[in-house]
């Protein structure tokens, strides 16, 4: 969502970041406390710059994630069991407080968060969030796009999130995340997430999201699991293109994912079953489609990583909702690329893609520099 540069929004933003900065610089109340609390803080900025060429036979809209420059500022503060976390994204296209969460660690590795967070039912976004340096490919799969980038699934929720990692047997683990909070609205045909800086909460409903993952190694990165989400999304301006009498869109998402890390290989496979119910006075239209992707990354010598991704969908072409409101949703796409980690925390990535949307076919070439500082 684009934040208009209005004084009140800026003032609210200044307050949020002052709170963070104040906590970051705060001293312990006494030396005795200092001995046991060990405050920790981490400030990381993920930077990226991109040049691209996209040939399209139909679409005239700028494709997603194509801002030529992006800075994702992440600040994490830890004090004993408390956490304060903020993520602010600044690009040539938008600036937005993406996440702002206050957390408390109930028991070891089980946290309860309050604030605006990324919903845990997205397999990709819970891994990479807005930090482009941490994803191998330049682009994210179409089904995982953010709301303000023509994303079809709500990704930002404002409310409560419980995230727990528990041991299972000697070395395995189980990760459970459950979130409930204010979901998006549909305005001007697109999802509009709840914005902490410029809140418009009227008409919003509670969204539910959940993720259950088995971790073969409790401290490792591999995971296999299931996700589910339920959203009731009010349409505030009759902007469902093919069914303008729609006043509410109900969306249910069920999915399964695999994140598999082994030596030089990383494989991510995800499939979502998305059910849409378009509701209006005296009308209801139900449709569903399947979308998924498979990405494989292979590390090569000298800091190179080769990667490829297949995105595909089933029945999405027949969706009235997608055809009217998301004509640039990628029905299928093939991606191949090469990433070169030039030096620590700096990478250059070349990505070639051939995609097909409801209204066009296109070839995409992207060259990206990404980094994490310090």
């Amino acid at each position, binding site marked *: 969502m684009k934040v208009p540069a209005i004084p009140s929004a800026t003032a609210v933003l200044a307050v949020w970041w002052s709170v963070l900065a104040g906590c970051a610089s705060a001293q312990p109340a006494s030396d005795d406390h200092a001995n046991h609390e060990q405050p*920790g803080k981490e400030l990381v900025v993920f930077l990226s710059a991109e040049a691209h060429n996209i040939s399209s036979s139909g679409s005239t809209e700028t494709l997603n994630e194509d801002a030529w420059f992006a800075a994702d500022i992440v600040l994490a503060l830890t004090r004993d069991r408390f956490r304060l976390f903020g993520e602010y994204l600044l690009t040539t296209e938008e600036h937005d407080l993406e996440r702002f969460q206050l957390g408390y660690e109930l028991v070891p590795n089980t946290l309860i968060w309050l604030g605006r967070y990324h919903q845990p039912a997205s397999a990709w976004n819970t891994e990479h969030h807005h930090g482009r340096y941490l994803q191998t490919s330049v682009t994210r799969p179409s089904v995982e796009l953010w709301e303000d980038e023509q994303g079809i699934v709500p990704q930002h929720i404002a409310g409560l999130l419980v995230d727990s990692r528990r041991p299972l047997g000697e070395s395995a683990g189980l990760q459970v995340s459950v979130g409930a909070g204010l979901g998006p609205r549909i305005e001007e045909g697109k999802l509009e997430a709840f914005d902490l800086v410029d809140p418009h909460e009227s008409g919003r409903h509670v969204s539910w999201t959940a993720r259950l993952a088995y971790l073969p190694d409790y401290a490792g990165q591999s995971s296999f699991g299931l996700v589910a989400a339920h959203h009731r999304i009010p349409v505030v301006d009759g902007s469902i293109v093919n069914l303008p009498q729609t006043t509410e869109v109900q969306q249910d998402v069920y999915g399964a994912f695999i994140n598999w890390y082994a030596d030089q290989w990383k494989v991510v496979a995800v499939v979502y079953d998305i059910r849409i119910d378009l509701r209006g006075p005296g009308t209801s239209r139900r449709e569903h489609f399947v979308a998924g992707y498979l990405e494989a990354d292979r590390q090569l010598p000298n800091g190179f990583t080769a990667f490829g991704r297949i995105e595909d969908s089933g029945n999405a072409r027949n969706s009235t909702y997608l055809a009217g409101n998301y004509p640039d949703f990628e029905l299928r796409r093939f991606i191949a690329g090469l990433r070169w980690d030039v030096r620590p925390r700096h990478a250059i990535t070349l990505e070639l893609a051939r995609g097909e949307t409801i209204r066009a076919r296109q070839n995409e070439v992207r060259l990206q520099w990404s980094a994490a500082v310090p």
Partner: protein
Amino acid sequence: MKRLLYAFAAGLAIWLGLARPAGAEDRLLLLVSAESQLTALSSLEVHRLFLGLTVVVNDQRLHALRNDSDELMRRVFFQNIVSMSESVYDRRMLALTLQQGRAAPTVLNNTRAVLDALAADPDAVSFGWAVDVERDPRVKVLRVLWRR
């Protein structure tokens, strides 16, 4: 011929002796404050602690302090304690912050600072070469993490 062999053997012994670092550097010790109630920590717990996960033992929430004093210690840390390459560990720590809002373990680049930090925090866990730490009464050795 015998003289030549003796000379060769002596030369080899001297060369090997010179090539090795100080003998006391052969042991990397797991350390806590002398005031800590902690008496043992398993390899798995050490591994999880330095990967940024919360580890609680006997109601003590432990804090990892990474000693990054020299190149050999760094190599032992990546190979034996966290069992991954430096670049993979770095990405894990970035992901830790991005995914879980956690700060990565504090890194100190000299053992003196590590010993001071351990002395000030009974919940802190770190490591150091035996030669640098064994005579410091402020710290307690839990076990040997690595020996040559």
